[in-house]
């Protein structure tokens, strides 16, 4: 009887255990599924091409284009992506909050905001919306309206771009920049005096094409600083990417009407849906424009006889991502559906991305920074690369630090000019890195071995800043080479530094950030090899 009771108890417990295991395994399944859902790449079709400049405008509709996504690759920066897809940096950063502009993570998926609400203005000629930093050029009539659109750079808060109706007064290819007195004064204060006029060329900020507006002193022009498109960086003029201004120049006759508006809150319709696009943060509310937007929405609400979801409106206002967001169906079920964003294949080569030539031992270069953090170094190098005109720069890692080296420069004046620009524009104190003197081999000179070449290469990279251990100094290069080779064979990072009025060949070991590290290594070498060394600062 007792046994029977025990068995029934046992079987009950067993059942419980089995049930528990089943529940646990079900939980396991669920969590695995959620992980898979999160990380499994969604099989998707990648578009090879997406339209970025030219769109048809359907009658009665205000929204053009299509949002897209792209996966970033190593070395991409948002300004390069923006330029390739004819977007301003403002658009890309607003659509992708939290993404590092200069050093985004490889594999990160970002939005390309290639959909726009047309400004609330007559659809003819050129309309520029300063808030969206975008130019719209209308072609055709209301039956078959086409719009060409380009991102622009606009005036600063201190020197804003004008608003109002004007027209293209004249057009010039390769314009000369007649420096306005106010800008000349600014540059003089910065210690960078400008000539009265800047002739066409890489230093001319107007670029290759200019459309002079009927409002005196204001132009729509190209730029020698493409990374400034999508920034408030001009003195009131409107800047375009060089490739965009060329198209605009070719498509725009003199006397074309130009309407400059400043509309941060845009409301538009497409496929039975009302969209809203916001370009201003809540801290920067334009009262008049805000009222206008509110009245427009109230009117839509009244006409439709249905309530707008004002919480949705608040959300769009708070996020201010600069993309059209559907907020309302004009009639119940009237929305034919929101256009799904497309996935675009990474083009590999990004149009307009600054090229970075290899450093050369026979060229001059400039040490722009020496930082312990790689990301900081990469960011700085990218910023220097995106100057206008470009200053090529890259990161050279050495021991535990990262050098940002600008160059190569063909002569010392180019290098000094870069140092000046780094100082004036970016407040960076660059250090000149001398080039290796090229001289013909002396008769009977020792043929340079591959090892010697390597040592010379090390010497080039060492020619920056820091401490080394000087093992010997020779007037004769071959003696220095012989010692350096011996040290190299023992596993030391040996190099030869040639300097002084009467050139001396210093045989150095290592490169140390601090004197203490150099001293420690010096003691170690003395103990191990019995070689005395002195600290050399270069």
């Amino acid at each position, binding site marked *: 009887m007792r046994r029977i009771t025990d068995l029934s108890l046992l079987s009950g417990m067993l059942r419980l255990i089995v049930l528990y295991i089943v529940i646990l395994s079900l939980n396991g399944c669920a969590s695995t599924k959620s992980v898979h859902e999160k990380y499994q790449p969604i099989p998707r079709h990648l578009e090879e091409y997406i339209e970025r400049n030219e769109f048809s405008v359907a009658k009665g509709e205000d929204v053009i284009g299509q949002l897209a996504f792209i996966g970033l690759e190593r070395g991409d920066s948002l300004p390069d992506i923006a330029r390739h897809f004819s977007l301003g940096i403002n658009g890309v950063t607003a659509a992708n909050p939290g993404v590092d502009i200069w050093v985004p993570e490889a594999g990160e998926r970002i939005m390309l905001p290639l959909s726009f609400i047309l400004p609330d203005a007559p659809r003819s000629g050129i309309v520029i919306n300063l808030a969206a930093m975008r130019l719209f050029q209308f072609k055709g009539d209301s039956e078959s309206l086409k719009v060409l659109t380009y991102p622009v750079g606009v005036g600063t808060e201190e020197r804003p771009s004008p608003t109002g109706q004007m027209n293209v007064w004249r057009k010039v290819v390769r314009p000369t920049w007649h420096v306005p007195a106010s800008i000349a004064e600014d540059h003089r204060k910065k210690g960078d005096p400008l000539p009265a006029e800047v002739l066409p060329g890489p230093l001319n900020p107007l670029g290759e094409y200019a459309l002079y507006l009927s409002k005196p002193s204001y132009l729509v022009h190209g730029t020698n600083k493409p990374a400034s498109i999508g920034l408030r960086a001009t003195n009131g003029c409107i800047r375009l990417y060089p490739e965009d201004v060329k198209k605009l120049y070719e498509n725009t006759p003199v006397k074309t009407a130009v309407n400059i508006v400043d509309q941060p809150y845009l409301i538009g319709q497409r496929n039975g849906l009302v969209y809203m696009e916001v370009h201003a943060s809540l801290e920067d509310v334009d009262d008049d424009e805000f009222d206008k937007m509110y009245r427009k929405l109230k009117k839509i609400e009244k006409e439709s006889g249905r309530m707008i979801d004002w919480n949705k409106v608040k959300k769009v206002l708070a996020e201010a991502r600069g993309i059209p967001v559907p907020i309302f169906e004009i009639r119940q079920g009237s929305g034919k559906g929101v256009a799904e964003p497309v996935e675009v294949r990474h083009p590999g080569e990004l149009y307009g991305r600054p090229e970075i030539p290899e450093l050369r031992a026979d060229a001059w270069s400039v040490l722009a920074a020496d930082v312990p953090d790689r990301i900081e170094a990469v960011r700085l190098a990218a*910023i220097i690369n995106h100057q206008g005109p470009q200053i090529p720069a890259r990161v050279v890692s050495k021991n535990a630090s990262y050098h940002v080296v600008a160059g190569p420069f063909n002569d010392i004046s180019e290098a000094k000019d870069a140092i000046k620009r780094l100082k004036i524009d970016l407040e960076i104190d660059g250090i000149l890195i001398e080039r290796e003197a090229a001289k013909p081999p002396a008769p009977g000179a020792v043929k340079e071995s591959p090892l010697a070449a390597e040592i010379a290469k090390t010497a080039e990279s060492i020619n920056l800043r820091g401490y080394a251990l000087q093992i010997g100094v020779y007037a004769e290069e071959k003696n220095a080479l012989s010692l350096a080779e011996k040290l190299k064979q023992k596993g030391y990072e040996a190099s030869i530094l040639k300097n002084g009025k009467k050139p001396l060949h210093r045989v150095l070991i290592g490169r140390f950030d601090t004197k203490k590290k150099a001293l420690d290594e010096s003691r170690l070498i003395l103990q191990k090899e019995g070689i005395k060394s002195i600290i050399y600062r270069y």
Partner: protein
Amino acid sequence: MKKSLLVISMMLVLAVAVVGCATKGDLEKVQSQQMLTGAKADQAAQDAQAARAAADEATLKAEAAAARAENALKMAEERERIADEREKRAEEMARIADEKAKKAEEMFQKSMKK
């Protein structure tokens, strides 16, 4: 008769007296009992001593354990403090990195002016 009674009485008294006296066996028994009692007392004393020693040892062990526990607690607190410090340092580093990035961006935007 009287004599006989006296003898009998004496015999009885003697017998009674003899009965009151211990035999050798009794004595041995008593002795062995005494020895046993002594041994037991010794054992009890030894046991008590051992118990005291054990109690002392247990006290020492308890004290050592308490000290170890205290030490472990201190170490845990130290580890927590170090972890907190590391976290604070990481936060500080992140803040500095953000500030540097912001400063770099401001610098860049300034450099984009004409």
